[in-house]
């Protein structure tokens, strides 16, 4: 029950909301623009996605808008991807964005940096009360962190086999994208692929577990940034790396995020001191 009762700053969930909404735009809005004329289903789902993600980004009825965006993404994956077999909509980066958005709808993602917050502050001012604290339950934020862990864990399990650990799969992937059917003339190519394959699996297992320990963040968070940055730069991963960057926020204690935003704004509001706070537990 401690986890269910844990509350903390809503700024973390708000940043997740803004980041994921922008990623939804980046990944889908061109594909679903009306001028493509792909049929009624595409147009309707596109209109739904444009409207819902805009409200999600602005933070107007934030949780509802985020749930609407998540359900639209789910409809896109299930109907257009599974039923109509548009396989580009079944890629991992699409599933990850959809799941993260659905989980975000369970967080207090409108409590900060949103029109919802703006309205709450104005209402308090009119009533002569101080603005409500930016606090809310954190249990669903931990689910987003758990989802990121699961991606690393199952990705590592999938690669724990001879074809990957021998470096052969990485050889094929790099050749496919860089040299085509010709064996690369780079010196040590097989050794490089072997080292890359083994270290990738080791890193994924380490991240699946290690990110839950804040004292390892100084090492693991820069490692995540470099690892996904390399993938982003060298392979066609679409929005996968960027989505993992945004989701990584879920591992940072909410109080830390709050303090960082305060410092950026030159303020020092002590949200941790709000009454009845249970804990700002690290996930």
């Amino acid at each position, binding site marked *: 029950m401690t986890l269910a*009762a844990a509350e903390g700053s809503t700024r973390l969930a708000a940043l997740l909301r803004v980041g994921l909404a922008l990623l939804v735009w980046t990944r889908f809005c061109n594909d679903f623009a009306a001028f493509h004329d792909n049929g009624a289903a595409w147009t309707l789902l596109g209109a739904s996605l444009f409207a819902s993600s805009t409200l999600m980004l602005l933070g107007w009825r934030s949780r509802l808008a985020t749930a609407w965006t998540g359900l639209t993404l789910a409809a896109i994956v299930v109907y257009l991807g599974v039923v109509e077999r548009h396989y580009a909509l079944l890629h991992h980066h699409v599933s990850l964005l959809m799941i993260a958005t659905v989980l975000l709808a369970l967080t207090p993602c409108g409590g900060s940096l949103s029109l919802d917050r703006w309205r709450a502050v104005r209402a308090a001012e009119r009533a002569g009360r101080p603005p409500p604290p930016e606090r809310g339950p954190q249990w669903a934020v931990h689910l987003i962190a758990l989802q990121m862990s699961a991606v690393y864990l199952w990705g590592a399990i999938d690669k724990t086999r001879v074809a990957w650990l021998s470096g052969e799969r990485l050889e*094929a992937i790099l050749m496919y994208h860089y040299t085509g059917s010709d064996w690369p003339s780079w010196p040590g190519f097989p050794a490089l692929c072997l080292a890359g394959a083994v270290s990738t699996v080791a890193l994924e297992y380490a991240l699946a577990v290690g990110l839950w320990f804040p004292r390892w963040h100084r090492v693991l968070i820069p490692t995540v940034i470099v690892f996904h940055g390399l993938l982003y730069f060298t392979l066609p991963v679409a929005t996968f790396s960027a989505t993992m960057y945004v989701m990584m926020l879920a591992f940072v204690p909410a109080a830390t995020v709050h303090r960082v935003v305060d410092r950026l704004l030159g303020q020092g509001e002590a949200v941790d001191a709000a009454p009845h706070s249970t804990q700002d537990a690290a996930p």
Partner: protein
Amino acid sequence: MDAPPTVAAPSPGRLRARAAGFVVLGAIITLGPAYGHFFATGSHEYLGWKMFSRQATDFCAVAYWRPDPGGRVPLDRFAVLGYDPDRAPVDLRRVRDPAAARVIGAKMCARLGRGADVRVDLRCATKDGWRDSPATDTSPATDTSLCRTTR
């Protein structure tokens, strides 16, 4: 301004709902992918977090060559067919399968003229790693010249 307002503590029922939601969704997130990874077949085989398992599984690594008394002499398919490697058609740069490799070999035979002998070492990418293709059978007892088999 008054003191900071307090936040109403969640009711026990709400706390129980959150805990149940966490357990159920957490179990789905953590254990759900096991289906795709261990039990799924057919079109479900790719469910789960199998990044890179499907990528680069529809092409072959090729090395064309001709036999010579001194050993093998590599043949550059781009040079033989008159292409700049950087501007060659994608299906020449990335040979799709053994049949496509044989078609390219046949074109090389035609460009090299009568008496040419073009052979190919072929390994195709699969999700289980490289798989040697029958076209790599270049033992002396076997006639694998792509020129003879395509005329």
